């Protein structure tokens, strides 16, 4: 992401309104910040998935983390969050 943002700030990529695309990834500009929008490596999360992903980020892939993720969401959501967490390892 850092390289993408630097590229956009250097005038590379394409712009469509507030959307900037570089290296196949699109970012949306809000005020002075670029926020991931779509493209390879970006995974939209709902509220439960986001919460569960935060648990795996802080506790790793452990039985307790999975137990907590299920406790806060459900089996399916916790499993999807774990799959996304694994992509970042």
């Amino acid at each position, binding site marked *: *992401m*850092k390289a993408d*943002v630097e590229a*956009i*700030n250097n005038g590379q990529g394409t712009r469509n309104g507030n959307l*900037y695309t570089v290296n196949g990834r699109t*970012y*949306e*500009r*809000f*005020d*002075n*910040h*670029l*926020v991931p*929008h779509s493209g390879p490596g970006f995974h939209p999360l709902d*509220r*439960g998935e986001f*919460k569960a992903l935060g*648990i795996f980020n802080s506790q790793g892939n452990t039985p*307790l983390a999975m137990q*907590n993720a299920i*406790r*806060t*969401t*459900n089996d399916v959501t916790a499993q999807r969050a774990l799959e996304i967490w694994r992509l970042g390892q």
Partner: protein
Amino acid sequence: MIWFDASLESPADDGLLQSCMAAMLNISSENVDVVHSISDIKDALATCVVEAHSAESYSQLITLYLPEALPRPDVPEAAARLARTLDRSLLLANDETANPYSFIRVSNTGQCSVVLVDPDELDENDRYVIREPGRENDGAST
């Protein structure tokens, strides 16, 4: 299962959170658990997980959980009731936009308005500092 998160303008103690959440849901306080760790969530009808906070405004984050089988009341309406009973304003995620710096502020009278928080304060210091309208910056970062 998670229902919604809210940041409180000023901290509330566990007893107040319990009674206000019970009032919001029209259930007995005995059916509301207020805990400080996800690991402590049990089988209550409603659970409020409270995170550590500082003296800063909106630093106390609460997450409300309801069992998956129960219907979920409309979040803005429920949050308005909660803000009124807590007598303090709340910040909620604004699900109407992808802008991570946009929030719904629910006043202590239950009025909702869209506000923007300072991106740098949120990203770098995890602080919710509501911006005055009209303050804009140039140059993009993440």
